[in-house]
């Protein structure tokens, strides 16, 4: 189990995961994860299927709580604050750490309402402010031009690529600090995938991005840092250059080579 390779102090690491262990219905799913996620950079999580990548993601914004039979130990520090501390407001955590899933899931509302859903809950000002927020987020996710004239339409009318961008806009609307992406392009066609990738690269200026992907090419294209997770363990982590060009472990090398 390698720990984070970079010699940084806490400030550069937006999220620090310490001794994270997770059991799901008795099975030890995540084993002693220790790693730091640097601020305002894109970190990719790669590894074989079904080995805990998505689970790790879900631990970071405490979505894992929703799955019965899970037990977590360890700490996940967001700017030094442990999100697993007792009595913490889970919904506030999820506001600060957003999650975009593999398949776009639309809320049963209009396009506008989908994006406005989060801000509304947090009482984000009157109609004018809401409209501004929605517009801003749709622009950032690159969907504004295509939907600006049909905001009141049901969101289901969009193509799947557009739906995914809507989900991104929706996630941005609550003004998070961190964005988690769970295989965001695996359900999309190459064109839409490319657009999403471009957006993520743009987003990292303001947000810390963490992406689970099983597409090595994608990781190579957009990641600044890489975590290689296999069978619930963090095998290796480091900058993208280190991992892809000169990985320290043979396993890592074999995996990357095999996935090309």
């Amino acid at each position, binding site marked *: 189990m390698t720990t984070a390779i970079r010699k940084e102090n806490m400030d550069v690491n937006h999220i620090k995961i310490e001794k994270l262990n997770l059991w799901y219905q008795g099975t030890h799913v995540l084993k002693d994860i220790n790693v730091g996620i640097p601020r305002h950079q894109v970190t990719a999580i790669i590894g074989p299927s079904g080995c805990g990548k998505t689970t790790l993601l879900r631990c970071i914004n405490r979505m894992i709580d*929703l799955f*019965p039979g899970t037990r977590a130990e360890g700490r996940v520090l967001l700017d030094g604050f442990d999100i697993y501390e007792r009595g913490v407001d889970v919904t506030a*955590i999820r*506001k600060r750490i957003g999650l975009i*899933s593999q*398949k776009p899931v639309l*809320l049963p509302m209009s396009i506008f309402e989908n994006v406005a*859903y989060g801000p509304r*809950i*947090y009482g984000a000002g009157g109609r004018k402010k809401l409209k501004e927020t929605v517009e801003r987020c749709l622009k950032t996710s690159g969907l504004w031009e295509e939907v600006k004239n049909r905001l009141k339409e049901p969101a289901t009318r969009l193509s799947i690529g557009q739906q995914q961008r809507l989900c991104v806009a929706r996630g941005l609307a609550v003004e998070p600090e961190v964005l988690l992406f769970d295989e965001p392009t695996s359900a999309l066609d190459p064109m839409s995938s490319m657009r999403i990738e471009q957006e993520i690269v743009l987003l990292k200026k303001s947000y810390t991005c963490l992406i689970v992907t099983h597409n090595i090419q994608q990781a190579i294209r957009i990641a600044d840092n890489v975590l290689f997770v296999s069978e619930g363990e963090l095998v290796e982590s480091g900058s993208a250059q280190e991992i892809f060009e000169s990985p320290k472990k043979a396993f890592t090398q074999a995996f990357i080579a095999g996935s090309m």
Partner: protein
Amino acid sequence: MLAITTFSGLLVLLIAAALYLKARPLLGIHKLGSVILGSTWSPSNGQFGLKPYIIGTFWVTGLAAVLAVPLCVLAAIYLSEYAGPRTRAVIKPIIDLLAGIPSVVYGVWGVIVVVPFISDVLGPYAAIHWKRIPFLAAEDTTGFSILAGGIVLAIMIIPVIVSVADEVLRAIPTECRYASFALGANRLETVTKVVIRKALPGLVAAVVLGVSRALGETMAVLMVVGNNVEKLPTSVFDRAYPLPALIANNYGETMSIPLYDSALLTAALVLMVIVLGFNILARVVLLRAVREGV
């Protein structure tokens, strides 16, 4: 086997057809409209107006719906969104047990518990405090009232509404909820803004199914509702005479008066059509809701 199957399917149509056939003699003489809207029922005088009974049915059923629906929806939300599997495993059978209690037993309970409560406790209270409120004015009430019928009926339809509503809510895919949670919503917000919105057609169907069950309920209501149509009801403390009760109470005397049996069967036909109408409506809504999934 095919024969029996077809027969069983056709049975319901047979029943409708038979009722219609028997009702025709009456309908030949009095038009359907005048039967439904006529205000006097006096077969010995040749008058066959069903209006007071239809109104009585709607009063009792309406009250039952008003009482039952909020309770049922909240309980269904608890069962599908909050309760763990062990709680569900205990509570769902209990609610189903409620569905198994025979109608007469509800009637007996109504007579023992509800009627005295209304006549001794609620009635006098309402006579003083609720005089001004539209539907709640009470003069002397014996307890046998629309309110009693409504309460008993409401309890009888609770299992139907709760179990269908629960199924409807559980059919909403979990991804929807996760998407809402991931944005930082809590369960209240997720349930009210997302889940219920998606489930609305199904929930409405659940209520309609419950109402259709209530419309046809005979014994329990008959025993507590007063069975009197001297005047049209204006308050829940008044007595009423729902359609099923009319049929049940008078069937014995069908032979003596001309057209009486035809009239009662017309009433039965009207009842059947109303109930089936609601029933089919609910099922169609449920089917469409399931098909549109998402």
